């Protein structure tokens, strides 16, 4: 147990010290990395633990984002209500999607999650009077929770806190008896049923959890950018989350967080050099699938295994 505490403590020190070491721009970039780490970890709960690959996870990210945006801008609701409401709406979206998508398996599940997410995108895009259509909703204010988070550094610490707490919560979930049951369902649904587990109910709860955490990530990202547009819930957003999970290593939580950091860094770096980010993203997909199907964590484990037996 003590051995496990050390990396956590080190990580905490690094994250606290960061704004004193790097320029503001990078504090913003690391904030974005943390938010996407949460988004990717929430998707990993689906893919890596229950074994259901969703192609529409951005729907919950966007639902959380649009909810805080609309409540703040149009209803002038306090952030104390808007942020929890963002998570709640994403959670309810998860409930609805789960009812429709969990009837299906395999390829049908992939297609249905993708199609449902595109419906949400279609609403955000088409309902101009409410959502501003393609232009989105600009002018969303950073919230004040006891202290104003308008400042980049203050907002960064807020994100560190919430993402940190969420990471702990997700880790507890996957290590609990419930988490082990999810792994069992990934491996063999028929065996789990024979052991007395209600497989559907487990998948449902995991799906809703994943949606809730994705909603929190989306709400935070809207606060960071101070605007929201349909790109927040587009297929490309789902696809980025998916490759973060695969690139990092499915079913490890830490891997997807690392994958998120790497993809966000690459996107930032490549976008400053060229317009061809989508092309690079596609190539990352193909290369990862061909050469690192178990992700960076998998490569690292293979490396360690090879060194330990010469």
């Amino acid at each position: 147990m003590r051995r496990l505490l050390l990396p956590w403590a080190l990580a905490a020190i690094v994250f606290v010290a960061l704004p004193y070491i790097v320029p503001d721009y990078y504090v913003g970039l690391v904030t974005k990395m943390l938010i996407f780490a949460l988004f990717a970890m929430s998707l990993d709960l689906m893919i890596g633990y229950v074994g259901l690959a969703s192609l529409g996870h951005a729907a919950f990210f966007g639902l959380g984002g649009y909810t805080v945006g609309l409540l703040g801008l149009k209803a002038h609701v306090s952030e104390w209500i808007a942020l929890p409401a963002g998570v709640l709406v994403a959670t309810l979206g998860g409930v609805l999607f789960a009812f429709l998508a969990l009837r299906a398996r395999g390829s049908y599940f992939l297609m249905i999650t993708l199609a449902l997410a595109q419906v949400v995108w279609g609403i955000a895009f088409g309902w101009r009077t409410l959502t501003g259509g393609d232009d989105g909703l600009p002018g969303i204010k950073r919230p004040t929770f006891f202290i104003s988070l308008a400042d980049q550094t203050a907002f960064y610490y807020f994100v560190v806190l919430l993402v940190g707490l969420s990471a702990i919560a997700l880790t507890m979930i996957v290590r609990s008896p419930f988490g082990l049951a999810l792994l069992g369902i990934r491996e063999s649904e028929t065996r789990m049923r024979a052991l007395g587990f209600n497989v559907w109910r487990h998948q449902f709860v995991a799906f809703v959890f994943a949606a809730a955490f994705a909603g929190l990530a989306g709400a935070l990202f809207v606060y960071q950018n101070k605007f929201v547009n349909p790109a927040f819930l587009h297929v490309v957003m789902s696809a980025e989350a998916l490759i973060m999970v695969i690139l990092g290593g499915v079913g490890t939580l830490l891997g997807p967080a690392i994958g998120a950091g790497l993809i966000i860094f690459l996107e930032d770096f490549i976008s400053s050099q060229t317009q061809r980010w989508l092309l690079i993203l596609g190539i990352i997909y193909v290369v990862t699938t061909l050469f690192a199907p178990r992700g960076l964590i998998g490569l690292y484990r293979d490396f360690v295994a090879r060194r330990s037996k010469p």
Partner: protein
Amino acid sequence: MIWIIHTLNGVSLGMLLFLLAAGLSLIYGLMKILNLTHGSYYLVGAYIGSTVIEKTGSFALALIVAPLAVALLGVAMERFFLRRFHLDELPQTLLTFGFLFIIADLCLWIWGGDAILLPKPALFSTSIAIGGNFYPTYRLLLIVVGFAVAGVLWWFQEHTRIGAMLRAGVDDAETARALGIDVSLLFTVVFAVGAFLAALGGVLGGPIIGASPGADFDVMLLAFVVVIVGGLGSLRGALVGGLLVGLLDNFGKIFFPEFALFTIFVPMAIILSFRPTGLFGRA
């Protein structure tokens, strides 16, 4: 008599969707690959078609060149990439997802970001009177071509050797292999046919839907709904689903312009909750 016009519009869109969904459905039925690149085949078909028409002025030539070029693209994807992950669902999906982005960005690079509409062939750029309204003959051509392709595919599947192999393969690939059917060649043929049909849809749809960045997603999405409704692996499902979605989309845009997608997705959700494998799909 405006209803006739709307219905014809719906049916002609339905026939285009059938061209896309037929390939998607056959590829899935035989290889269990969910091909997310299928909308890209449409887009590349439309773009190549536009270039051919621009250079030669011949729509007929575009109808041959573009589908053949895209069929080659499909064969390359199947032979060099997808084949390595036979029956492994997640990596196959990821690969096709990757190709979707690569192709989308290359198209943007080559053909630019402006939406283009292909010119109609001279022979079908006129209109005829139907019940007091003028109706473009090009859309009628689409309906005729769609039914003709459906007829050819059906005949091919029921009455030829390759069709029989295909049916055997869809039912049970392992048994088909044991019977001495060259499954490997069959996979490539089906992928080529699927990509060919999607690109044919791209050229034929070019004068009415056009080509633009993002059209690949939109078209793929509609094709997905068609196969979700009709059932994966079934030609009949692709035809019925295509017509249904084409009509729903057309009338939806008239009645609920801000929520057009709903008129497609609400029926999809209803069908799904009663038949999770679609109208003609097998469990």
